């Protein structure tokens, strides 16, 4: 119930294409859903986050879509660039816990 299931494990996209990474959760108490971007040898960097009171949040080329009824959320990277090649992690947490539950990560490669 505490798991966050992330898919796909790896993704190859052409430059200019749309990258889509999906996450699903079971615990309906989760109320904060961040996405992190991690380059090799670096710590994860907070990319964008959403709360369940909205269905979509956009920051530049990055969009989170949130489906509360399906208990799913996804990251869309529009106009994907080679510089977006990294590992992406979704996460979830909720009031009353200090823990953040992370997905297993998606390794994205954008071909030039």
């Amino acid at each position, binding site marked *: 119930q505490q798991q966050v299931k992330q898919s796909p494990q790896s993704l190859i996209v052409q430059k200019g294409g749309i990258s889509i990474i999906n996450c699903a959760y079971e615990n309906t108490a*989760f109320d904060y859903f961040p996405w992190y971007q991690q380059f090799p040898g670096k710590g994860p960097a907070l990319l964008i986050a959403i709360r369940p009171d909205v269905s979509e949040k956009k920051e530049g080329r990055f969009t989170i879509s949130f489906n509360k009824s399906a208990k799913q959320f996804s990251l869309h990277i529009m106009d994907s660039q080679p510089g977006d090649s990294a590992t992406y992690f979704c996460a979830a947490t909720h009031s*009353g816990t*200090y823990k*953040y539950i992370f997905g297993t990560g998606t*390794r994205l490669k954008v071909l030039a």
Partner: protein
Amino acid sequence: SQTIHQWPATLVQPVGSPLSLECTVEGTSNPNLYWYRQAAGRGLQLLFYSVGIGQISSEVPQNLSASRPQDRQFILSSKKLLLSDSGFYLCAWTLTGSTGGGGANEQFFGPGTRLTVL
């Protein structure tokens, strides 16, 4: 602005040797602090978290321990390293009172320490 530091950046240690990794946060007070481990090509495993000085919660009861001697300092230790302790160790922080709800939920990561146990 807040900054998180970790050192050393890389470390190669023999099996059975002790370990001490340090994490410090600047620009905030009473943060919640976290230690994660990331195996090569894998996800993030929460090891410890702390919500205050001297308060440590352990998620993985192995040969690792953590301490928080000062408000913004978090230390990860081991008395005897195992081969399986190799990995990328990440420290992270959130604002105090960040229990997942409300407005202050962002968790920020440090640059990490690459530990290789031989």
